[in-house]
């Protein structure tokens, strides 16, 4: 009897693990879709991945005088810049690692990246995403990034 009980426990554990992994894959897929929109200058694809009413974009950086700066960017400004980018600008944000944590309807994704412009390395950092799972699936609620040029450990030394 005990054996059967543990068997079920173990199966339940495996099932849980599996569904957690599926959820994580889903979160990663939404974030990757955001960047497909970003690279293809497709604001509709981007809009389909964010929780539009409350979506917040912020950036953290260090100013030249060493001061820490937190700059919010309205979503419309982000799309202005994106759509006005010349088609030969060739921006490439390479995502180099995903760490995703999920609790119920809340997910957090810690995504390291390298930013390349016309084949030249520009900067690196981390995109920290918060996502919410509503009726139409996982949507990005906030995106805060960090930007730096030192300690980038370039994963991809060539473009």
């Amino acid at each position: 009897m005990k054996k059967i009980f543990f068997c079920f426990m173990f199966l339940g554990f495996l099932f849980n693990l599996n569904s957690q992994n599926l959820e994580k894959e889903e979160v990663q897929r939404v974030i990757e879709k955001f960047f497909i929109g970003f690279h293809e200058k497709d604001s509709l694809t981007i809009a389909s991945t964010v929780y539009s009413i409350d979506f917040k974009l912020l950036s953290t950086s260090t100013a030249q005088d060493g001061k820490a700066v937190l700059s919010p960017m309205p979503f419309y400004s982000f799309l202005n810049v994106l759509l006005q980018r010349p088609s030969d600008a060739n921006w490439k944000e390479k995502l180099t690692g995903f760490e995703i944590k999920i609790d119920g309807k809340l997910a957090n994704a810690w995504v390291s990246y390298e930013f390349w412009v016309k084949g030249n390395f520009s900067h690196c950092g981390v995109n920290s995403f918060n996502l919410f799972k509503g009726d139409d699936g996982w949507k990005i609620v906030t995106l805060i990034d960090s930007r730096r040029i030192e300690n980038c450990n370039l994963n991809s030394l060539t473009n």
Partner: protein
Amino acid sequence: MIKKLLLILLVCFSSKAHSQIINEKLVEKHLTTLADDQMEGRKAGSQGIEMAAKYIESEFERIGLDKFESQNSFRQSFSSKDMSLFNVIGVLEGKSKADEYVIISAHYDHLGMKTGEKGDLIFNGANDNASGVSAVLALAEHYKTQNINERSLLFVAFTAEEMGLIGSNYFGKQINPENIIAGINIEMIGKESPFGPKTAWLTGFDRSDFGQIIQKNLEESDYSLYPDPYVNFRLFFRSDNASLARLGVPAHTFSTSPMDKDLDYHKVSDETKTLDLFTVSETIKAIAIGTLSIVNGNDTPSRIVMKKDEPFK
């Protein structure tokens, strides 16, 4: 103290009264009238469009607009392709910059009727573009009540847009484009935008700084404006703003519709009941807030420069 309180109350009350001019009830009245089956799809040259023009004229009269260039009618009549056509124009003269004009426009014609079939034969054109005309009428009433327009406002319902921007083309030939500060054109604002509720998109966003002025003015509101996401559809060239833009006027079109998913577009099912009155009414309010600094003379958008070989269709 009591005086102060009274003053505060008065200010609150009056500003509330102003913002209430544009509401779902008013919008619904305009929409249901213009998209009614009686108007038979408002095809340019038809009996149906005559009825639509009469309604717009009667509303301009009720609101208290003036006639364009001291004519005795709100109609700007002309003929084209053997049809007698008419734009409908109402004027609100500017308080201090009367010779600088801002145009607030929408086309009021649509496709007419289908022939030789059973069932619904009428292209009601509720979204396309009774919604835009509703906005023009509501904004006319709003600005008449507010009495804050330092620049002159021309409220224009264009005819024969669906036949190739004929009405706006004719209008463009009758004006001196240098006196036109901006063109605010409104098309299909009856369905929720792909960017979510309380958002709209603007065609030709990067061709002048008009869109950025609107975005700045909307910053304190909970409404936002985005660049047109359907660049491949070339919508900037496909609505009446193009007739003014080609003359250098910063003229753009506001819209909310999800063009890639709208199953009612140019179908007989484009009826008032498929529209979202909240979207229409909130979008009109946002256009009022967004364009205020242009209407009151504080902002002047940059002119549009067309490339020589740029096609217009």
